[in-house]
């Protein structure tokens, strides 16, 4: 179009062609620059005035290039010089409109892309949280324990319906305590009561293979402890004690108050030949260790010891008051 306009104004074919090609090439270059600029920088909020200013500057530069270099570059013809000067405002305006549109389009496009990316990232983050929640829920509910307990209840319904009902009650109380969201400290007594529900259910499941011995010095019962802290440790003790030996198993829990600590010892027998308690401390102990570290900023509160065929976990809970 530019070419035909120039031709109609009496410019030679050669000059018109050169002018069109070079000026449009420069325009293209400017557009490319501006879209790249907005790839890295986009005005925030209402600062679109900068965009307009930038477009104006670039258009002015474009006009200046044409004004001062085209004479030398393309033709020294007087008519052509005249046309250049008179057409300058038009070229300026055209350039401004073009790169204005270009910037608007690229800003919209890149914003859209950013938005998309943001949504994707958000979805991914949400998915990760969901997965974490789900696996923590699964841990809490311990499907293996739950379904085996239900199976025991199913067996009891026919032979001993009274006991079946009692076990349903215990299982419900235990589950209610498990899913309760409560991070406040509780006293040892209520923690032990919750633990007892769990142990009673396990005793029904395993019959006389499982015995428990819970000893306390009286004073310790009123001391404070983070809720559900002992549960995974006792589960661990049962896992090693009951699942890894063939004999009857006694799990011992001894609590005492040794100022300023509440001290809890949980011990279980294990078979030194097959169990490797040192190799993997097991999920239960790792998470307890982490929890204690978060709560008290100390990593020396949980210790384990092995004597012949007894595995003992010792926990110290600092009492602040």
């Amino acid at each position, binding site marked *: 179009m530019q070419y035909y306009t120039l031709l109609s104004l009496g410019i030679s074919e050669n000059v018109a062609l050169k002018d069109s090609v070079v000026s449009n090439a420069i325009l293209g270059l400017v557009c490319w620059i501006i879209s790249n600029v907005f790839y890295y920088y986009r005005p925030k909020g209402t600062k679109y005035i900068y965009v307009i200013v930038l477009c104006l500057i670039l258009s002015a530069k474009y006009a200046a290039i044409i004004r001062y270099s085209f004479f030398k570059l393309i033709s020294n013809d007087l008519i052509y010089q005249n046309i250049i000067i008179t057409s300058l405002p038009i070229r300026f305006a055209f350039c401004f409109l073009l790169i204005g549109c270009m910037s608007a389009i690229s800003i919209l496009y890149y914003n859209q892309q950013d938005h998309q990316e943001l949504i994707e990232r958000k979805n991914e983050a949400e998915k990760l949280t969901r997965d974490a929640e789900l696996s923590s829920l699964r841990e809490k509910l311990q499907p293996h324990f*739950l379904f085996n307990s239900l199976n025991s209840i199913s067996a009891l319904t026919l032979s001993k319906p009274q006991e079946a009902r009692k076990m349903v009650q215990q299982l419900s109380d235990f589950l209610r305590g498990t899913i309760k969201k409560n991070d406040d400290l509780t006293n040892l007594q209520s923690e032990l009561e919750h633990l007892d529900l769990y142990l009673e259910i396990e005793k029904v499941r395993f019959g006389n*293979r499982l015995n428990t011995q819970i000893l306390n010095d009286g004073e310790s019962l009123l001391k404070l402890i983070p809720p559900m802290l002992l549960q995974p440790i006792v589960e661990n003790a049962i896992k090693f004690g*009951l699942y890894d030996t*063939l004999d009857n198993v006694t799990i011992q829990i001894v609590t005492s108050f040794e100022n300023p600590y509440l001290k809890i010892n949980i011990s279980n027998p294990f078979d030194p030949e097959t169990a490797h308690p040192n190799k993997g401390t097991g999920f239960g102990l790792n998470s307890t260790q982490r929890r204690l570290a978060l709560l008290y900023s100390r990593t020396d509160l949980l210790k384990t010891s092995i004597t012949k065929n007894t595995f003992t976990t010792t926990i110290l809970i600092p009492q602040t008051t």
Partner: protein
Amino acid sequence: MIKALIIDDEPLARSIIVQYLLAYADIEIVAECGNGFEGLKAINEHQPQLVFLDIQMPKITGFEMLELLDEMPSIIFTTAYDEFALKAFEANAIDYLLKPFDQERFNKAVDKFLANSQTQNHQQKEKIEITAQQNNTQNERIVVKTGNKIKVISVYDITHLAADDDYVNIHTAEGAFLKNQTLAFFEKNLNPKLFVRVHRSYIVKIDQITKLEPYDKDGYLIILKTGEKIPVSKTGYPKLKAVLGI
């Protein structure tokens, strides 16, 4: 009369199968066992046609127990948690009962067994192949039979494994134990951070290696802490180099 055996570490779980089996007058329960060792003994003693088998039990799992059997009875797995379901079906089990199950579901499994046993009477069942990948505890230990005794070997006690015809010789500080299995199976199932296959016939435990000596033209020999020498093959050498970081 069909002889059946129940193996489960929970007495109530056994009692429910006893209750359900009352519906079948021609199935007799010959024994109830609380773990895999008792189960193994009872199977050899009574030769039952049908075994109800729990998977997670003390010491050795139901799968590990089956590995030690020479002749396979029909198996109905009973378990609480379904992470093993696929494996059980790979193990050619008759059925797989998820606890808790009701009489109806139980009957379906037993009827399937009855239908099966009529069509293929006393056929030698295929040896159950178990891929232990999903089960962490199985990767940590290997169960072998030595004479009448069952030995549970922790993988941490192994120095190396050597192929020996259809068997694999598992070498530990306490001696060597034979297991009816292929070396390829162990290569697949042992933790690659602990073990490396250096030869067609050898897998070594990485932390047992003390020295690597040149041997022949371009061969190498591994010297273990125990002093034993293990040859390294041409294909084994790059693998060994990779795990040792040299």
